């Protein structure tokens, strides 16, 4: 087992005209981890994915995948990575099985094991009974499962999942998380971009928070929360503007950290004692509230002053 990290970025910059999509990113992803890139749309996550698969070339800095420098060793890198792209590009002119068959050939899967690889892919996507149907007939969740299975045909060491669950129902998302868990269990390195908090917290060993192409912080989700959020719980109080203002003022009076977020005001408190304290603030204004653990969204807001959107 080599000790080089799966991915190594050093001061990577990528510009598109006047826009700097990636602005000096430096980090390593050790092998066998599930690494999440968390940030709003336009944070530079997809550009980073393209830098890793040769679709874009850095203007400055160095990108290495599995110890191989990009873009010089791009072909070797692509042979050892599997990509599930954000833009669904399943081949609608072909059946599910033929989609996998074509990509197995593109990835150079040896003839002797190709049929097995395709069958395994169909099984992984749970589409054995749809194998000979056109991809056009699949639901959104099925298509995503097939895209991920397609990325695994050649048994890659690194799996890149670009927004794997974007636009899907929560229930379908759960199924995909299960599929991604299976990839983790197989010991592969996963790099996953997402703008869903639960996805990053649920799946990732390590999360990089990116914004405007910059790395704001990096760590295990729990550590990030502890590092940036003083409390373990958050009470979100919903209401009209006067209600929220009264709550905020009352919180100020008690020295409770709070912030306004869209339709609610969020109060950062410590478990049971804190909840009692909030309840005593203005009982009449607490008709609609929600108690939840502090999460990565709070971290993101703390770091940027903006919602993750």
């Amino acid at each position, binding site marked *: 087992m080599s000790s080089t990290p799966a991915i190594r970025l050093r001061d990577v910059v990528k510009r598109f005209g006047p826009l700097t999509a990636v602005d000096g990113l430096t980090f390593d992803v050790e092998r066998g981890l599930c690494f999440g890139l968390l940030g709003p749309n336009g944070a530079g996550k997809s550009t980073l994915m393209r830098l890793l698969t040769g679709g874009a*070339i850095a203007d400055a800095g160095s990108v290495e995948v599995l110890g191989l420098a990009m873009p010089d060793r791009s072909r070797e890198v*692509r042979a050892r990575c599997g990509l599930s792209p954000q*833009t669904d590009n399943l081949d609608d002119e072909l059946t599910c099985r033929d989609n996998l068959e074509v*990509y197995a*050939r*593109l990835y*150079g899967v040896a003839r002797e094991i190709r049929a097995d690889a395709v069958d395994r892919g169909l099984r992984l996507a749970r589409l054995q009974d749809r194998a000979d149907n056109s991809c056009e007939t699949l639901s959104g969740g099925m298509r995503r499962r097939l895209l991920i299975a397609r990325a695994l045909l050649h048994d890659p060491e690194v799996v890149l999942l670009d927004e794997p669950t974007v636009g899907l129902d929560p229930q379908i998302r759960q199924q995909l998380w299960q599929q991604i868990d299976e990839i983790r269990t197989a010991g592969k390195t996963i790099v996953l971009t997402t703008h869903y908090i639960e996805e990053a917290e649920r799946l990732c060993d390590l999360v990089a928070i990116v914004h405007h192409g910059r790395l704001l912080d990096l760590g295990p989700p729990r550590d990030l929360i502890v590092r940036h959020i003083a409390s373990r719980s958050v009470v979100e109080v919903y209401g009209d503007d006067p209600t929220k203002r009264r709550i905020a003022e009352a919180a100020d009076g008690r020295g409770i950290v709070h912030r306004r977020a869209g339709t609610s005001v969020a109060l950062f408190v410590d478990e049971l004692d804190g909840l009692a304290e909030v309840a005593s603030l203005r009982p009449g204004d607490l008709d609609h509230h929600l108690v939840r653990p502090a999460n990565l969204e709070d971290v993101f807001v703390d770091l940027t002053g903006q919602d993750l959107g």
Partner: protein
Amino acid sequence: MRWDAVGAVIFREWLVFRQVWNSVMFGSVVEPVIYLLAFGYGFGALVSQVAGIPYLDFMATGSAAISVLFTGMFPGLINGYFRRKESHLYDGILAAPVNVAELVTGEAAWTGLRTTSVAAITMVVAAIFGVSLEPTVVLALPVGFVGGFGFNCLGAAFASRLRSTHQFDFVIAGVVVPMFVVAGTFFPLDDAPAWLRWPAMMNPLTHTTDLFRAAAFQVGTVGEIAISLAVLLGFVAFAWWLAVRWLTDAMVD
């Protein structure tokens, strides 16, 4: 060059063709029939001999060359555009260990096979219409392949530059139609004004047409055939290079 990757690209085209072959073949047969009926009998009633051969023979081979141009160029142009901009098929293929050169080569080779079959079908239709072909007509098959390969690359090159479907018109009106008209396909260039000679001589379709006639009727000198082969092969090499270069520019930021 990873030839198994080229093979994978061709394999994908084959899988798609397997589902749509009947409509494609219908076009390949009906098109030369219409040309032969309309021009061969319609126009042929006015002219009997052109460039030393019967008009029906002249235009049958011209029609084969035009089919090679259209069947080669349009998939390169239209599929090339949609696979890059709409279906994102190229993103998928190029995220695999496949290079732009292999992608372009695979698609052009598949199209070359298609234009070979189109040339063959046109010759068979011509024979049925009474065009008498020499046995050397089998040499029209490799010409059909090479020509189709080149026209596909040319279409793919332009496709890589287009920003919207409206720009198809530039390529069709600016490239395809002039090539189609100034190539000695349906009327001879012998009487064309001098200023039109050079573009015609540079036009790969002119040489495709001449090589078809050389194969079908054993007309033309060795020197003329050698020049036609040289121009056609030079065009193919240039078109391939251009397609690889422009598609690389379009796909890699």
